[in-house]
């Protein structure tokens, strides 16, 4: 009887606030540890039996940058002010790819872990979180490429570039929110994987990844910067190459979108979570 009661009500009523707080902190630490372990496992399994291993994390952005540089820089003569087009593009692609790859890999992570979910209980939200954090490794390698390109082209950068680190934190929050949304929806509707691929492609062209908004008229510029990723990408470039954010109000609205995306994504995830076992 006592065992059954403990199962139904694991939190004893006699527990003080302090004890409950300590237990919650312990839970969070455990979740974080689990997230880290799953993220590392994700990276390892992705590159384990490949010939070039982690070098793919450098090759992929380099090849993409080369293609787009030829297309937009040479064929279409994109105007990017004082920054060489290649540097401009690699900067945009570095931060965009982290977002797009994070969302893409998180979308299938729940549906792809059916065996694990059936076996034991753990907070399901850890899976998409780990998928997004696993992309940090790729981002790290992409940043090395970015630094190399900046050095090769001898583009001066500013100390304000250090502000990119907290801004990256906001981008992670935004990415997690979108990842939670699609990861949970993908359990119910498997078309999500296709849809997300399409959506990310459209989203990339609607964001200032390959072009500068400064050359556009005010209305179009405003519409493109309303997109939170647009505001964040522009701000990151500004912080590295200009020394200050030129469109600060749009960055604030991007912060509001990030907070909304995170909570809305988590909210949808929590609502769908009880259905995971049933559907899978």
């Amino acid at each position, binding site marked *: 009887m006592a065992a059954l009661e403990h199962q139904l009500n694991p939190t004893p009523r006699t527990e003080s606030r302090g004890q409950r707080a300590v237990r919650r902190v312990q839970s969070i630490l455990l979740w974080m540890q689990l997230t880290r372990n799953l993220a590392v496992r994700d990276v*390892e399994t992705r590159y384990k039996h490949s010939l070039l291993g982690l070098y793919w994390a450098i090759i992929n952005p380099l090849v993409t940058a080369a293609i787009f540089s030829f297309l937009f820089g040479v064929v279409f003569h994109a105007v990017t002010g004082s920054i060489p087009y290649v540097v401009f593009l690699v900067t945009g692609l570095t931060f965009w790819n982290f977002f797009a790859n994070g969302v893409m890999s998180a979308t299938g992570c729940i549906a792809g872990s059916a065996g694990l979910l059936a076996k034991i*209980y753990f907070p399901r939200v850890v899976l998409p979180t780990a998928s997004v954090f696993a992309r940090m490794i790729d981002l790290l390698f992409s940043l090395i490429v970015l630094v190399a390109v900046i050095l090769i082209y001898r583009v001066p950068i500013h100390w304000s570039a250090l502000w990119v680190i907290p801004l990256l934190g906001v981008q992670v929050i935004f990415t997690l929110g979108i990842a939670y949304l699609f990861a949970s929806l993908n359990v119910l509707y498997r078309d999500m994987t296709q849809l997300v691929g399409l959506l990310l492609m459209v989203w990339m062209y609607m964001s200032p990844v390959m072009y500068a908004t400064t050359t556009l*008229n005010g209305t179009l510029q405003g519409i493109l910067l309303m997109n939170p990723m647009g505001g964040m990408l522009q701000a990151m470039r500004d912080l590295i190459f200009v020394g200050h954010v030129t469109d600060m109000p*749009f960055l604030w609205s991007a912060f509001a979108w990030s*907070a909304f995306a995170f909570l809305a994504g988590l909210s949808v995830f929590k*609502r769908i979570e009880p259905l995971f076992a049933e559907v899978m």
Partner: protein
Amino acid sequence: MDPQRTLTDIDRFSQPDAEPLGSLLRPDRLSAWAWTLGYTAVLSTLSVLRYHLWLAAGDDLGLFRQGLWLIMHRGLLAASTYTGHPILAAAASYILVLLAPLYQVGGVGLLLVLQAFAFGLGYFFIRRIAEQIGVQDRWAHLVGVIYLLYPTVLGANLFDFHPDAFGIPILLALIWAALSENWLAYGILLVASLLVKDTVPILLLGTGVVLLVQRRIGWGVATLVAAALGYAVDAYWLLPALTHGALNPGVALYGQYGTILAHPQHLLAWVRSLHNWEYLVWILGPVAALAVVAGKKSINPWWIPVLLFLEVNLLSSTPATTSPFNEMSVLVIPFLFVAALVGLKGSRTQGRRLTSGLSVIVMAFFLVFAWHDYHVNWTVRPPNATQLSQAVALIPKDAPVVAPNFVAAHLADRAKEWLPAGAQALPAGTYVILDPVVTTGVTPPSVYTEYSRVLGNKGTAASVYSQSQVSVYRLLRPVTLPAAQP
């Protein structure tokens, strides 16, 4: 990494003490925050877009930006060149003192996001109050969504910037504290509400009466005392000191009650104006639909503060106080929705047809508002944004400047700034930006004609920039202009 080790870690979570993080992660709370932040994101983006497109509904964004800048750089008592008085006297919004450091850090973008967040928080507190009263969750959500689509809320949010927005979460939290009998929170929120605007005491007067009607004598008396003290401090001490004896427009509204007391027949003096009835339809319409559902229960004491506040607005009958889409009416919204929630207490969901009917009415109000707002506030847009940006970039950082309202909002971080219609004695070295193509009502065409005449005189001003009808002049000698009525 050994995959087996990862699984061992996971096993630790199968222990029964792995529980959710607490109330924040409850799906209903998460959902309430998501709605709040969703509104914040959409409305702050629209506000920022308006700023980016050089749209301004009035002159208040420039006024408050200059006021906040003055608080941080010249002290609390520095006079705004818009009003001639310290910004705290403009609406007795002492809350601006708390906003000034935030503005210093985040600029106009943070100001607009905070305003949208303050409005968005209304949804969160409506849900909490509904929970406290015992309103069914589905109704609470519907009332919350009606609030977020409420024309007055949306209109005021997109109407430049006003500290009145912060009154919504404070007043709703105040009501929540009263309902949950949290004395400490109630006391703090009473003081905070009095920092928002000089018209708050009238709402507190109504709240005090409501609490007395509910036989909560201690709470009611405390609220009435706070209302009386707030009014007395504003009307007899702070505002006269800040304005050197000039009567503040907000406090002057209370004079309407003096008129009623002396001449009771004036109580309904507003009924002959069609505009006043239109105002009432906009303010009460969407909530009236909820009253139909609530039936007799919709008549409850929480209408007292609503009626007191609306009566003041209607009796003053100025275009600003009887416009349903500006800041002059937002402070009544919390009480309007609490009245609706109390009416819905105990109501069960009464079928899809009723909910659909309600949604149609609310959407009809929303669509008419959206159509009106688009035509009034979004279509009058400077076509020469590039030239305006270039012109603004030419003005030195601390130079005195005269600019139309939609440009002034971009140049407000300086001690001396005037709107063309409000400027009279301009010192030498003042920069004047003119864009006669756009007429927003704040700067009538006759004012531009007067400026062209004065600035055309040789030796008065030097042309600094002129392109696509956007002109910048620098005054070479002091100029005195005739007073113009905007």
